[in-house]
């Protein structure tokens, strides 16, 4: 962590305004290859806005945004993808009615043939999907089944596998464990770690400090649109992270309020 390479993605004092609403103010973070940067925050803290900026859905209004040291402003999600930034959204960006293999290659479909006979390489698409999912430990009976019929954890893994397959250097995960049970969350975190070990830089957005602390190397805390803390793993404990995340003193107050009836 002390090796000062150029970060894959670096945000420095980035702000975003929607009209007169300050959605994000002065947020800085670094994403290094083979590391997981966790962004923690409660609802409305600006996590989604941050994701949209990194994913190229929105431009930023102030501050600098560097991809591999080069200052940039992403024009659209395609632009982000071309620079190796893949985002797995909370809704997973899958089309539920479409078969798994069509979803896997959506937007980057391989073709064969030329001119008017240029067609999808269906065989390769099916085979690759099956193989890539198998690598993630998902043994699909039928890649033709609509992706909407998979479980939440499986869908999450399909989305991660897709990003890894398409050569992402930076993987942005939006609340990957939010809607999952304990066991499935564990499975997903395992793949997040696997992506890290494969040399990807990972941005993990979450409101669960326990999940974050399990896998994270850096922690950025957001609160009401601005940054309330930035730590590396060796500079913070899980308890402290949880305390800061939960609003610190606010949580203390809450505890007192809740305890009063039982103690009297």
């Amino acid at each position, binding site marked *: 962590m002390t090796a000062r390479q150029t970060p894959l993605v670096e945000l420095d004092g980035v702000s975003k305004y929607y009209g007169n609403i300050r959605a994000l103010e002065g947020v800085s973070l670094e994403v290094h290859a083979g590391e997981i940067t966790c962004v923690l925050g409660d609802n409305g803290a600006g996590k989604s806005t941050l994701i949209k900026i990194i994913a190229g859905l929105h431009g930023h209004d102030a501050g600098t945004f560097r991809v591999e040291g080069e200052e940039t402003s992403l024009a659209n999600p395609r632009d982000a993808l071309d620079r190796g930034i893949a985002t797995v959204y909370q809704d997973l960006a899958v089309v539920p009615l479409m078969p798994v293999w069509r979803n896997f290659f959506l937007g980057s479909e391989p073709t064969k043939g030329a001119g008017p006979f240029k067609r*999808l390489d269906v065989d390769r698409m099916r085979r690759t999907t099956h193989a890539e999912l198998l690598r993630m430990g998902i043994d699909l009976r039928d890649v033709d089944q609509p992706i909407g019929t998979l479980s939440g954890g499986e869908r999450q893994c399909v989305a991660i596998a897709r990003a890894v397959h398409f050569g992402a250097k930076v993987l942005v995960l939006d609340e990957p464990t939010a809607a999952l049970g304990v066991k499935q969350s564990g499975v997903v975190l395992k793949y997040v770690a696997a992506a890290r070990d494969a040399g990807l830089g990972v941005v993990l957005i979450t409101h669960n400090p326990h999940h974050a602390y399990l896998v994270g190397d850096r922690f950025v805390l957001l609160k009401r649109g601005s940054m309330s803390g930035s730590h590396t793993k060796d500079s913070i404990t899980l308890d402290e992270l949880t305390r800061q995340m939960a609003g610190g003193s606010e949580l203390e107050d809450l505890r007192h309020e809740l305890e009063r009836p039982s103690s009297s």
Partner: protein
Amino acid sequence: MSTTAPPAKDAIDERLLHTSPLRRLLGRPELGSVVGAAAVFLFFSLVADSFLRAASLGTVLYAASTIGIMAVPVALLMIGGEFDLSAGVMVTSAALVSSMFSFQMTANVWVGVGVSLLTTLAFGFFNGFMLTRTKLPSFIITLGTFLMLTGLNLGLTKLISGTVSTKTIADMEGFTSARSLFASELVLGGVALKVTILWWFALVALATWILLRTRFGNWIFAVGGGSDAARAVGVPVVKTKIGLYMGVAFCAWISGQHLLFSFDVVQSGEGVGNELIYIIAAVIGGCLITGGYGSAIGSAVGAFIFGMTSKGIVYAEWNPDWFKFFLGAMLLLATLLNAWVRKRAEATA
């Protein structure tokens, strides 16, 4: 993009063999409409003696093809998640433009046909552009185009020809060759088949190929099934939607040319109401009204049901007023059947 694909035989999981072919069939979007078509066919075979004659088949197929040519792009558009209410009158506009341009400019009718193609494609582009730019529902945008085209058709025709119909262009240069392309008749085994049937089959085949085997087809399913997700993974949503509207326009042009070259004169008030028939054919054929699911073949079966019903009622010597009632009942039944089949197929997947 390196693929670490295992040997090819692993591609098909051996457990797939246990999936019954029937279940596979149940998963097809067209299934409901095929069952419906068989029922309608059986019904009219029983009540109308002349229905089963070979000549009747030609008539039924012709009726089906005039609807089917438009039902194909309308189905694609619906899979892409949008409607086009201007599709019916756009056919008339396409016919009027080629007729009046040829007549006024005393040009070879092929010039008019070409001008008509460009004009109609421009209408389609306008629909798609307005939709993607304003992000208003396609219902509103194309309702606007529908009304404007209806007005333009009547207004401009009266202004230019002085009446509500166009002048005859039958004696003009190129008419015969254009007629053979758009409105000729082929005799196959004693059955007279209109050329529109060929156009229809070709369009269904082309649309099926596009839907199932091209990137654009993948994008059509994606923009209809989840346009935000599609955009997020880099699918050009705007281009796909505009392309779909131009597809509708292109087929409206074919239909319009057929209209012109089979009747020689065009009534400017025609076409109103047909847009709903195209949509119904697509829905009967298994297209999900909310997008993301459906097939071109289904739309053809839907159009065939239409053809059988409209002509079957005549062969059965009933009052044709009943046609609409049948249509409505069929639409409801087909949609219910489709919903039921899909639920079963997905539950057991």
